[in-house]
């Protein structure tokens, strides 16, 4: 074995050959819909990755920029006649670029923060990236830093309030349920832990209502997805191992998350990019992946009766499908739960499964384009006349809230569990 890095692109070399450059991806890519140039399409990125692997393309800003124009939403994969996994190819290409060229300053900063739990005090780096809003409230260990890197985004973004006390600090590690009921590991995620703590509280209340034992492993970290956006797969691997250790410490029937993005990391990304050279690690990650389940899906599976727990308030709601749900085939379950909730009327928006435009670091590098994609989403939501848009991903919630506020609209943005738990949390 040589010490030389194996090219991450080798991992997807066979998959890249499946792309016949037919152009079907032009019809479905939210990034292409705003940039309108071929390097933003899936086939364009596959072509560039192929040239990158052959070594006959210069590693200039153009290549980096092309690869950054991807939300990893997976729309192209769904609609591709040959099912080319462009999302995996882009992940590999970003990693290859990072290996060859080094990470950008921004992504280095992201990696430092999301992987280092001991960096509890704010250094100059954190201050520079985070800006004054979060200076006091968000620990530098959070992947949230990527969500709001102040110097990198325009001044117009609406930024949500940060919780006074993070969710995980409010609860013990193990919350005992009734005997004979399932034991559930709750993977909280940074957005829920630091910003949308209500989602965490609602999720917890619902599983306790069902009598489950809920474990919130204290060793859990950021899922690492923000790091992956920039090709920092080393950081992702480190976080995957730490999260694995934290989860494996407990005997559980399920690993549950109320964040579609975290779910995507646990369920798909980790086994895919981590432990390629370590089959034992890969098998353990796969075991966790197999147990990972979305909160709404699990609630339905365990027989939640929303008429006992959910809102009684009359409300017209519409549902937005997070990309990480769509690619995992989750669409019906949250809708069914909402339809069973008393008082709720579910209306479908146009293009409910279209990406909101957040896309990890995409919204940082391409904030204007991200806004452009989001504007279409906001219009679809407003057109339904719904009182609230409901979804299953805190990342989407932040992006949708931003879009609606930019459009001057007052439609509320809620997580499915918040509506489902309203009665039992009063």
């Amino acid at each position, binding site marked *: 074995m040589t010490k030389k890095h194996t090219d991450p692109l080798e991992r997807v070399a066979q998959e890249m050959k499946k792309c016949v450059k037919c152009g079907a*991806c032009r019809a479905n890519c939210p990034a292409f819909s705003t940039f309108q*140039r071929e390097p933003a399409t899936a086939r364009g990125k596959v*072509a560039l990755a192929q*040239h990158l692997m052959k070594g006959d*393309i210069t590693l200039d800003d153009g290549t980096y*920029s092309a690869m950054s124009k991807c939300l990893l939403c997976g729309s192209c994969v769904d609609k591709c006649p040959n099912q080319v996994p462009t999302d995996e190819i882009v992940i590999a290409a970003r990693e290859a670029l990072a290996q060859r060229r080094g990470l950008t300053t921004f992504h280095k900063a992201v990696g430092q923060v999301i992987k280092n739990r001991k960096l509890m005090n704010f250094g100059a780096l954190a201050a520079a990236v985070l800006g004054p809003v979060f200076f006091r409230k968000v620990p530098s260990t959070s992947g949230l830093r990527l969500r709001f890197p102040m110097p990198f985004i325009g001044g117009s973004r609406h930024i949500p309030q940060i919780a006074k006390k993070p969710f995980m600090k409010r609860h013990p590690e193990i919350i005992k349920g009734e005997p004979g009921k399932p034991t559930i590991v709750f993977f909280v995620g940074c957005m829920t832990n630091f910003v949308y703590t209500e989602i965490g509280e609602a999720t917890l209340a619902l599983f306790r209502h069902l009598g489950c034992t809920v474990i919130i492993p204290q060793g859990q970290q950021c899922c690492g997805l923000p790091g992956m956006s920039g090709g920092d797969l080393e950081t992702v691997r480190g976080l995957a191992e730490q999260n694995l250790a934290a989860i494996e410490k407990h005997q559980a029937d399920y690993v549950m998350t109320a964040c579609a993005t975290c779910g995507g990391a646990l369920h798909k990304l980790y086994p895919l990019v981590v432990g390629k050279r370590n089959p034992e690690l890969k098998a353990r990650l796969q075991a966790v992946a197999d147990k990972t389940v979305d909160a709404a899906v699990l609630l339905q599976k365990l027989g939640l009766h929303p008429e006992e727990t959910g809102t009684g308030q009359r409300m017209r709601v519409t549902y937005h499908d997070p990309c990480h749900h769509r690619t995992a085939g989750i669409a019906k379950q949250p809708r069914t739960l909402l339809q069973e909730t008393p008082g709720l009327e579910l209306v479908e928006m146009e293009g409910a499964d279209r990406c909101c435009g957040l896309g990890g670091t995409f919204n940082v590098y391409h904030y204007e384009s991200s806004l452009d994609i989001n504007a279409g989403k906001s219009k679809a939501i407003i057109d339904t006349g719904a009182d609230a848009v409901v979804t299953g991903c805190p990342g989407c919630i932040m992006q949708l809230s931003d879009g609606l506020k930019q459009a001057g609209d007052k439609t509320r943005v809620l997580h499915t569990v918040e509506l489902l738990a309203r009665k039992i949390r009063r």
Partner: protein
Amino acid sequence: MLDARTLQQLTDIVGAENIATGAQDLICYGYDATQMEFLPDAVVHPDSPEQVSRILQLANKENFPVFPRGAGSGFTGGALPKGGGVVLVTTRMNRILRIDTDNLVAEVEPGVVTETFQMAVEKLGLFYPPDPASLKFSTLGGNVAECAGGPRAVKYGVTKDFVMGLEVVLPTGAIIRTGGETVKGVVGYDLTKLLCGSEGTLGIITKIIFKLLPYPDSKKTMLTVFDSIDGAARAVSTIIKNKIIPTTLEFMDHATLTCVERRFNLGMPESARAVLLIEVDGDRDLIEKQAGQIHKLIEPLGLVQFRVAKDAAESEELWRVRRLVSPSLRDVNPDKFNEDIVVPRSKVPDVIRRIEVIQKRYDIPIVNFGHAGDGNIHVNIMIDKSVPGQIEKAHEAIKEVFQAALDLGGTMSGEHGVGLAKQPYIPLELNAEQIAAMKAIKAALDPNNVLNPGKMLP
């Protein structure tokens, strides 16, 4: 190679943000669905006929080739910049200029995506029938330049049957109008028809006037399964002979069904050897009657299953079988040559038998499906390019397939065009005099051979 001064002049025409010379752009505008790749020297995105005209004038002055491109979804390389030069992308010109509900015509720019246009006219109760498989991403300009077809051609015809007039920038830079928006018109040569399917060699289309139809009242989808390929092929000619013109008559042979079944497990009967997907549209009572007639006509031909969709959702379910073909084919072999021969409709059984013989002789899998209702069969020669000798073998087999189509009174290509991919086979279909006449037209319109040179004609 373009010199710095020429690049500057191009930049002056389109603006700095609409010209690209970086390696990434050159790569991404150097491919299409043929899987060939040629790198251009620059890519320009003009926004008006005037800009297109100035680019072509400059090309004649500085002697560089210009390759018009829409979505780059062609199957024969029509948009590929072979030999280098400037790729001219039409997708910024993507406005639907007007939809005239009084006269049932519409005027559009070439970069409008086919489906976008269809949805816009359908909102007004109108209908633009041409439906190439790429309609969700291909552009109307590309559709006209290649004369795209599609499943609905059986009843409605192909793109050229809907083009009434064009605005075209000729290779020398002159901007002209052809045709118009009247149903009749005989003044001068019919340049509109000449430009349809000219594959970007005679002019760059900058506006299109389309004829529209009223949107059909209703439609009915039927999935019919046969116990022999011959039975299905005879069903096609039987239906037409009995004066029923379905909207679509899609055909899938046994090899195609095996691929789809293996991958997607649709529960086809054991005895299934071929499938016809039949759709009729029009007045509700009429299509009910037609569906009944079709059932009766094809029953004696070895029909083992006849399913009629009750609603739109069921219709979509039946169409799924057809749509799953493309992703399934790779299970046979990793690479394919996708040809689109056409024969007179009554000759469909004959050509299928000829292809079976060719398949056995060369011992390579050939999968047939497509628009049998208009005699257009997609012949997919499945090979593994990494196996030595397979490519050569495929080329020999293709030649024989083409010859079979021609012997039966057909043509090598119904809708994909010639471009680069079919260029070597042209002498099979066109004789020296025909080619000379076409070359004379090209030379008259493009004296310096700057527009899409090296394409179509040998």
